């Protein structure tokens, strides 16, 4: 860790799946457990860290989040909270899923949590037909199977049509 402290102003280059490169400060990158582990185990000898699972648009969002949290780590929690809620506010589902995957891959716990929470809020208290529609989940149960699942946990479907 000592090296990462003294090289605090060092910059890393991250490369998205579509080839775009991002220059980030090290302390921002450290928000990601994945990158932190890479740096700790000295895998950073290569100039560019490829992130083949994340496209440029998502990576930009992720880094935006990381920067805010890295810079504001000492500032007020309330400010961060409002940033978090604003951050995901108008995001469409596709982008949200990308974000969740990216957060999961890069192991950014805070981001993963808020994104998962956002998706959970969408599912919450909606009848399952509606949930299927929103997420385009294809119902591959046979009617008999569906009835069996419903019977299995009858209480959970109470109150929904």
């Amino acid at each position, binding site marked *: 860790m000592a090296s990462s402290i003294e090289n605090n102003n060092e910059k890393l280059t991250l490369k998205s799946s579509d080839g775009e490169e991002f220059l980030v400060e090290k302390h921002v990158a450290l928000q990601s457990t994945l990158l932190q582990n890479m740096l700790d185990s000295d895998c950073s000898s290569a100039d560019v860290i490829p992130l083949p699972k994340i*496209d440029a*648009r*998502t990576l930009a969002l992720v880094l935006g989040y990381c920067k805010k949290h890295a810079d504001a780590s000492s500032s007020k929690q309330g400010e961060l909270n409002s940033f978090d809620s604003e951050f995901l506010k108008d995001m*469409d*589902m*596709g*982008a949200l*899923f*990308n974000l*969740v*995957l990216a957060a*999961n891959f890069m192991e950014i716990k805070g981001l*993963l*949590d808020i994104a*998962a*929470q956002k*998706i*959970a*809020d969408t*599912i*919450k*208290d909606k009848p*399952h037909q509606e*949930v*299927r529609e929103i*997420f*385009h*989940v*294809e*119902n*591959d*149960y046979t009617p008999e*199977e*569906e009835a069996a*699942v*419903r019977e*299995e*946990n*009858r*209480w*959970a*479907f*109470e*109150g*929904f049509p």
Partner: protein
Amino acid sequence: MDSDIGKSLDRISKLPDSVLCHILSFLQTKNAVGTSILSTRWRYLWTFVTSLDFDDSVLFHDGNEFDGCNDMVNFSFMNFVNRVLLLRLRELLGDDIRAGLQVNPEFKRQSFQPSVAFRTTYVSASSAHAKDSSFIFAVSGWRSLGFSSLASSSFSLPPSRSRPPKAKNESQNPNKITTATRRYKEESTPSRLSNSSLQPYEVSAIVIDLGSHTCKAGYAGEDAPKAVFPSVVGSIDQMELDDPDNLDKNSESIPDSKSVVRPFDAEKSKSKRKLYVGSQALGYRRDHMEVLSPIKDGVVVDWEIVENIWDHALRDCLLIDPKEHPMLLAEPSSNSQQQREKTAELMFEKYKVPALFLAKNAVLTSFASGRATSLVVDSGGGSTTIAPVHDGYVLQKAVQSSPIGGEFLSDCLMKSLESKGLTIKPRYSFKRKEIRPGEFQTVDLDFPNTTESYRLYSQRVIAGDIKECVCRAPDTPYDESSYSNIPMTPYELPDGQTIEIGADRFKIPDVLFNPSLVQTIPGMESFVETAASVRGLPQMVIESINKCDVDIRRELFSSILLSGGTASMQQLKERLEKDLLECLDRREHTSISWFISADVVLQV
């Protein structure tokens, strides 16, 4: 990625399991389980969610909460909770689940009583360290019972989700849970020292065993209970104490400030009585003080008294705050659903304990000696119960019990002595002065206002002591002629009078083995009809074992555990062993090994 692609594709189902579970963990459990209907991909996803909350308030919406038609839903919910709990427990404890846990069988079967609200049930499990860790279900509701791993002697509190690995030496003896010990005569000095060395997140559980005769309380994992005091309380009706002088005199003359005086809140208590708990408070005679027992025929009839006893145990003897300690209560094998409910209600609502577990006496005894299967012969103060324990469960069908316990034997002894013209003078009824060195004078005192029940209580205390000191089980069935010439044993009563006890030494304990012997004791006639239906100890043991499955009989025979105060009677073990072998000789050859439970619960 573009949103139009998102629209046509089922993106969410393609997320990795871990991410989906993470999302589900942000949902109410009801919603999470509800997602199982979405598609086959989702069917079992929720089962991987690590935090579930069982909150049935979600079932009671739109004000139709106690609608009878909800029964099916309730049942389904209960069923669900049970399945999840069992699944989780198995995951956590592996094969130890059967040894370490006792799942309340009623819990599975119960149907909802609409009048009782089933409140939020909070479950926290330290799922990270499987076998090594303790595991708590803290159930803050009325209905359900908490259960915790009996395997560990200390618990972690709900806020600390995962706990540091336990000290190894503690976990090496996984089944050790100590309930009580052999002979503790006095209330021990209050102490909380045992707590201080523990890690910050660990507090030891408190164990309370409210027996019919004695209440034992202490810390789990210790060899002996910290507090042992009678299960009876003194009660003075406040109506009769309207006279202020009388009241003053009473409170002034309380000999020791430690005596527990628990005045009742007049508004709260309808009966307006003052209760005195603890052997010191009871040892002092008071005008009009009745001695009451909260338990009748193994069932708690007066919860107010029970509350006071718990208060005394926790606040006066152990000096702890019940909010901080998980609680383990020992209950009789025959405890009913209502009793458990009430107990849980009191514990959670009044004492606000973080976690509660009710364990059957027999199971605890069995675990205390490190076995999951055994036949527990519990001969206590009020009754004798024989309960086979298999894999940590009491086999209810095979439980045998008889009303012959220590108190009954004491009564027999007292009556028998009375018939010989010896009356036991209660300690309060005389004063004893040393007039010259070595020479004492006894002056009888007269207290007309002493109640009959207090006199009886005081006499029983003495009779109990005589019994403990001199009685021993005879090697062969008692018969009048062969024991008529045995030497007398002296016993000095509190008033200095020395009595000689002869054949009664053996006759009284033999009542355990041969209840019909009661007929020959003058003054016990009232029991004679009952005696006909009560069998002796060896017969009960054999009957109980014969009611069990053939496969486990052998194992039961090989580990018979004696517990309870009466069982610690001299020679009782040898006699029972001998009788059993005689009965068995004719039928099968079984090797019997014997173990007296290391920590015999005191119930003289």
